[in-house]
């Protein structure tokens, strides 16, 4: 199937200074505390938060870290901007490639900081990703493994 493209934009205002908000992204330890997807486990293998730096992590359901994530930081401006490319692979297969931008500005109205996250998604095999997320691929693999000999018999 052809790749899917989508841009996701989310905005939040936090009662924190831009510096604290930025620090929550800059430290892998802090990120680990809040950024693991729901019901999933996240393990950082390599941390390198700087322009040109590459980070590697794995995520998936607990005990089955089937997705390999690679984050390549394109630009980082302290307390203001983080711009990176995140690829997600399952084995050798590239599932998605996402260009992410986090913009942080002071929010004078609330005295806090405003965050705008823009996620430009290119999903190459969304069926497989959707299937994997729901735990379906395991079922289908089992199914096809069972069907293959059945088809051979037919």
């Amino acid at each position, binding site marked *: 199937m052809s790749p899917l493209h989508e841009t996701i934009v989310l905005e939040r205002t936090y009662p924190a200074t831009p510096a604290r908000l930025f620090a929550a992204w800059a430290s892998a330890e802090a990120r680990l505390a809040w950024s693991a997807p729901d019901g999933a486990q996240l393990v950082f293998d390599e941390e390198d938060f700087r322009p040109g730096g590459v980070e590697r992590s794995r995520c998936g359901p607990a005990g089955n870290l089937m997705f390999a994530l690679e984050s390549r930081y394109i630009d980082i401006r302290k307390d203001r901007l983080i711009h990176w490319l995140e690829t997600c692979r399952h084995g050798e297969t590239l599932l998605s490639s996402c260009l992410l931008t986090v913009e942080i500005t002071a929010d004078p109205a609330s005295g806090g900081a405003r965050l705008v996250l823009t996620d430009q998604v290119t999903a190459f095999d969304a*069926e497989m990703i959707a299937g994997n997320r729901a735990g379906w691929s395991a079922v289908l693999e089992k199914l096809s493994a069972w069907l293959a000999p059945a088809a051979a018999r037919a």
Partner: protein
Amino acid sequence: MLHHQNPLDLAFHALADPGRRLMVDRLSRGPASVSELAEPLDMSLSAVVQHLKVLEAGGLVRSRKQGRVRTCELDVPALRQAETWLNERRLSWERRLDRLGAFLAETDPEAPR
């Protein structure tokens, strides 16, 4: 009767039975009526209907009734909803940004302890 809540458990439970696997095998070659499904199996129609319910609960098969004939097919198109993934990614970011807010509140050096 087991009560499986997890969709994966339900699907595996559905595939755990050889008779049901034969039904899935048959449906992988195209839709079939309940009696067509029952024919090659040494099973009563009511047993086939029971198995069908398990397969439907497992999200592997769906059926629709036209007149007196119930036609079954593999529920594969349901897996082909790419929007599901994109929606899930959006939701995932929303939840993570919510948790970021909670994290910032918990680590606020000026917050009263």
